[in-house]
């Protein structure tokens, strides 16, 4: 199996997962919203948790795909951009569910909050690990350390989800797509730096044993 075939298979798997999740979430959310209007908030808890589980599954799948590629020597900026595109694809596929995602992010139910905190922790960890793998040969040139790079990517993508949720027209969606394209271009230009990394500027003294 050549490289393009593997890429196509990987994308198809993610697409299937996302397509299923997106449809499920949309339908469940609609039902949950109707019930919530009648005073029953339990279904929204279930759908919110389901949504995060499905998104987490997508991240796990993407992480596996790109770390495997990195382990075969397919790393560097090109792969990082492909991974970023894959994550953006997954968000775009959930476009219909973007408002539901916003509701999930703002749900104050304790169970959802707990799962949301775990989702953030796990997904940022996967991102960091993938960044370390993809940039294994260039870690010394990363503009910020992998953990903070993961946080940046997460924050940027989450911001795009919020924008997507508010997009009403095709023009609105095109603006969000352009924002992603600009973000991607900036990432490509600045993710690796020949000078001292940001880490060197903000290093804090660490505790040592007595």
């Amino acid at each position, binding site marked *: 199996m050549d490289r393009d075939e593997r890429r196509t298979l990987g994308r198809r798997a993610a697409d299937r997962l996302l397509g299923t999740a997106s449809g499920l979430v949309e339908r469940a959310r609609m039902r949950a919203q109707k019930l919530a209007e009648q005073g029953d908030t339990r279904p929204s808890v279930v759908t919110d948790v389901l949504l995060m589980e499905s998104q987490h599954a997508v991240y796990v799948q993407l992480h596996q795909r790109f770390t495997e590629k990195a382990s075969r020597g397919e790393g560097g900026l090109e792969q990082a951009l492909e991974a970023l595109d894959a994550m953006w694809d997954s968000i775009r596929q959930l476009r219909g569910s973007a408002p539901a995602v916003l509701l999930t992010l703002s749900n104050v139910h304790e169970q959802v909050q707990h799962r949301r905190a775990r989702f953030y922790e796990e997904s940022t960890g996967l991102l960091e690990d993938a960044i370390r793998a993809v940039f294994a040969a260039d*870690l010394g040139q990363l503009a910020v350390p992998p953990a903070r790079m993961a946080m940046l990517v997460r924050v940027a993508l989450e911001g795009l989800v919020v924008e997507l949720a508010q997009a009403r027209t095709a023009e609105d969606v095109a603006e969000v797509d352009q924002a992603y394209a600009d973000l991607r271009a900036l990432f490509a230009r600045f993710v690796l730096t020949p000078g001292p990394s940001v*880490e060197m500027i903000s*290093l804090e003294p660490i505790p*040592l*044993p007595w």
Partner: protein
Amino acid sequence: MRYQRVHIEAIAYALPPIEVTTLSLERMLGPLLRRLGLADGVLEALTGVAARRFWPDGFLNSDAATLAARTLVERHGLPACGVQALVSTSVGKDYLEPPIASLVAGDLGLGADCLNFDVGHACLGFMTGMTAVANLIELGQIDAALVVAGEGSRTVTQGTLRRLLQPGVDFRTFSEHLATLTLGSMAVAALLVHERHATVGHRLLGGATRASPRHSRLCLGTANEMKTEAATLLRAGVDLAEGTYAAALAELGLSTEKIAEFALHQVGRANHDALTQRLGLPPDRALRLYAEYGNVGAAGVPFTLASAVERGRVRDGDLALLCGIGSGLNCTMLGVQW
């Protein structure tokens, strides 16, 4: 704990001849640091330690302790009453047996009337050794004693470098072993005497000691490596020091304002800052030596006192407080009127 009759007659140290900069260690670790994405200067930036010293290859802890003791004797001589105890206090050991104190006593040609033994109390060893012989002096059992510490960090540093250069070392492993790369080498000796044999007026006043054995497994060191939970250890150490400081001030009837110099155990920037801030110590009265010498174990506190005296920071009659913290976790603070 108060002493009425114990004086520090002399203190001397011996510097190892080989200086090893942190930058040179980074060069050796270059492949690992690049793989982990850590830029040049990261070790010094994180720890505040710019250099440490090594003894020549094969130079033992007992050789170092003997060298410091000989330096003291050459500069100050021994009292006419002789020395009735020699205590070695280094963290590092040459052998399981005999004790380093026996080796040093043999090197110095001390006689049958000189008790010798090792104190094992991690980085707090020297101060515990001082307390042990001060008790004997105060009780009238002996007139004079030598306390020595000869620390060598060459073997453990080299072992750590080899370990870190193995394939597959990740960031977590690097972090766990980082502290070992801050260790330095040094030798110190102090002569404590009964007041009737004192020729200078440097009194050991007493102090306080506190323990926190529930934190005993936060730093596990062997001859080849040291693994630590440094952040927890720092917090626990500072907590313990805070209680010890209050107890020492109360015991000695002192206040922060009255103390000219705080001779702290030398570890690194974060520990030094945390300790001075929590205890409210004026930073300009707590000499920092870790940058040039690293963590020199049990030799750290007496070396700091000796350096402060050399630099004129502690003058005759000044009050100094020796502040030691050691794995275990134990803390002792001793007042000295120089």
